[in-house]
């Protein structure tokens, strides 16, 4: 069926600004993805899935300009021993990166997977993204698969001694970056993936994660402070039996951020936790869109999202738990909450449950509220100044999400960022 004109011309305009990388073994996957984009069309304002977040600036041919911000804080995760993989405006920088060898893991640049023995990566590229297009289309992810200019393939076969950290630097105020990573965690293997940095003026990132039976992947991400940056990210995760996936995202500023998490629990007793804390000010819009599918028995999923909004900032949450027929003993939990620090800010939430099994426990909740006046008075009556008390309560509000991170050193880093944000506004 042909696309309606309202979709077709912006889609073609965007496609005209891009060129399909010619070489490589991902060619077929890219062409298939391009066909998907043409079939679905890029997101438009009338799409139900984009009801609360305007996609215009994410699909226009040129990236809107975004000033490069010089941080007055130490680099995120700088105190943590990690293997650094650096991208500058979406291009891998071998000079800035560490040597990519680390016991228990093989890492290759995306363009090199064809000439290396990285069959799994060729077979995974675009596959989870394509699976994730049903039942809800995610055209920006297909666009990413087709046109990704760079990325890495990470094969985890053991338990590497330190986290692997993807660092995204932003140096050009017109950069339009498309990165695609594929990660395979083998049975019994375990890894922590960190991501940080504003990446580009406009950033489209897709990560496909395949966790085999008994594998574990921890993911902690901090999206940087460049106020004018825009990002649309997708994480597609497929989980095998008794595997674990825990992902946390901190977002501080950024004019537009849309983070999609698509998780499929395909083996019994799998665990998937996705969480996020965001703090935003003014023309900030932050959208967490999550889709978790339970397709096996005895699996557990948690979604914990907290947003602090002030000065007219907007928070969006669209979260779904789909329990397929036969996915008995599912334990699903979903909470999305916002703390509105003034009357101008808004939180738009669409929690959804769709359940086709009869022996499941699924709970969900969504709230929006101001600072608790009783708690505020209690703190002040003990001598804590109003601003400090407000900040304490704000951090306390975010704690449930931050507590989803297991490594205390990472928690400390994340909390320091949040304190920095609060202090700058006190």
């Amino acid at each position, binding site marked *: 069926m042909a696309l309606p004109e309202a979709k077709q011309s912006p889609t073609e305009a965007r496609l005209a600004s891009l060129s399909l990388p010619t070489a490589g073994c991902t060619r077929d996957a890219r062409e298939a993805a391009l066909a998907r984009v043409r079939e679905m069309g890029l997101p438009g304002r009338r799409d139900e899935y984009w009801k609360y977040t305007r996609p215009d600036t994410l699909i226009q041919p040129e990236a809107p300009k975004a000033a490069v911000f010089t941080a007055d804080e130490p680099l995120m995760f700088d105190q943590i021993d990690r293997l650094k993989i650096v991208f500058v405006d979406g291009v891998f920088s071998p000079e800035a990166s560490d040597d990519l060898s680390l016991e228990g893991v093989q890492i290759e640049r995306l363009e090199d997977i064809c000439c290396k023995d990285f069959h799994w990566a060729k077979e995974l590229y675009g596959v989870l993204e394509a699976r994730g297009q049903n039942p809800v289309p995610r055209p920006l992810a297909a666009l990413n698969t087709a046109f990704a200019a760079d990325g890495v393939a990470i094969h985890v076969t053991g338990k590497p001694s330190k986290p692997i950290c993807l660092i995204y630097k932003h140096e050009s105020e017109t950069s339009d970056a498309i990165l695609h990573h594929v990660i395979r965690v083998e049975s019994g293997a375990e890894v922590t993936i960190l991501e940080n940095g504003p990446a580009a003026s406009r950033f489209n990132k897709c990560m496909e994660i395949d966790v085999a039976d008994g594998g574990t992947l921890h993911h902690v991400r901090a999206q940087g402070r460049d106020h004018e940056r825009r990002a649309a990210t997708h994480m597609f995760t497929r989980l095998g039996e008794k595997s674990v996936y825990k992902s946390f995202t901190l977002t501080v500023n950024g004019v537009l951020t849309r983070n999609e998490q698509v998780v499929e629990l395909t083996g019994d007793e799998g665990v998937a936790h996705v969480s996020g804390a965001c703090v935003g000010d003014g023309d900030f819009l932050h959208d967490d869109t999550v889709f978790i599918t339970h397709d096996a028995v005895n699996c557990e999923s948690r979604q914990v999202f907290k947003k602090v909004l002030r000065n007219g900032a907007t928070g969006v949450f669209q979260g779904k738990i789909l329990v397929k027929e036969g996915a008995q003993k599912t334990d699903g939990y979903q909470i999305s909450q916002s703390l509105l620090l003034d009357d101008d800010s808004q939180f738009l939430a669409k929690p959804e449950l769709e359940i086709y099994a009869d022996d499941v426990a699924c709970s969900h909740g969504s709230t929006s509220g101001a600072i608790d006046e009783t708690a505020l*008075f209690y703190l*002040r*009556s003990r*001598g*804590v100044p*109003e601003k400090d008390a407000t900040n304490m*309560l704000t951090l306390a509000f975010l704690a449930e999400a931050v507590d989803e991170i297991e490594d205390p050193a990472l928690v400390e880093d994340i909390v320091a960022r949040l304190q920095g944000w609060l202090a700058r506004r006190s």
Partner: protein
Amino acid sequence: MLEIKNLHVKLEEEDKQILKGVDLTVEAGKVHAIMGPNGSGKSTLSYVLSGRDGYEVTEGSATLDGEDLLELEPEERAALGLFLAFQYPVEIPGVGNMTFLRTAVNAQRKVRGEEELSAADFLKLVRAKAKTLKIDADMLKRPVNVGFSGGEKKRNEILQMAMLEPKMCILDETDSGLDVDAMKLVADGVNALRDEGRGFLVITHYQRLLDHIKPDVVHIMANGRIVKTGGPELALEVEHNGYADILAEVN
């Protein structure tokens, strides 16, 4: 120390007068008790003195060592040495009890131009004080009052009082919800803080608490006013005869 003169207070949101001319002076070193039937304005008095929103002072004054309390923010009143032990201590999920205590102690020290306590010094101090109140290390680590029993909450209030060393302590129905043993523990905590420089205002419904915290002066409050003042024997009279006789007498 604490001087309340002709204090008139109404609710901010509605036209309801709660306090209708309270006169009360608490001297340093003394324990004053306020007793009175429900709705007489006892808790309102404690909230107005500590600076809670929602009340409007229409007449009168309240000073602590000559400083006008009513002009100050709650945290400024606290730094000046005023402390309110809440009738219903507030649960604050996500804020550790220790973090809260240390922030409060150091915030007050800062205002008074004193050096902040180091983490180590603070820990030493809080552990020693917690021990006498039978507050274990686990309670200190937990979020403020979350999952605490009624008794634990009240002991936690007294621990805060012990750490902050206020000049003027107001205890709002600290005995409510306590069994006999817990009440004794709380009373011991209060008695340990009694000294010449510190005043207490103990608000209670029952004489029970006053068996453990011996007051110097007992006031009866009714309908927004102090209607009778006497010695400890006044509390006993209430215990035996209820408020009816006294109220009939003053009316």
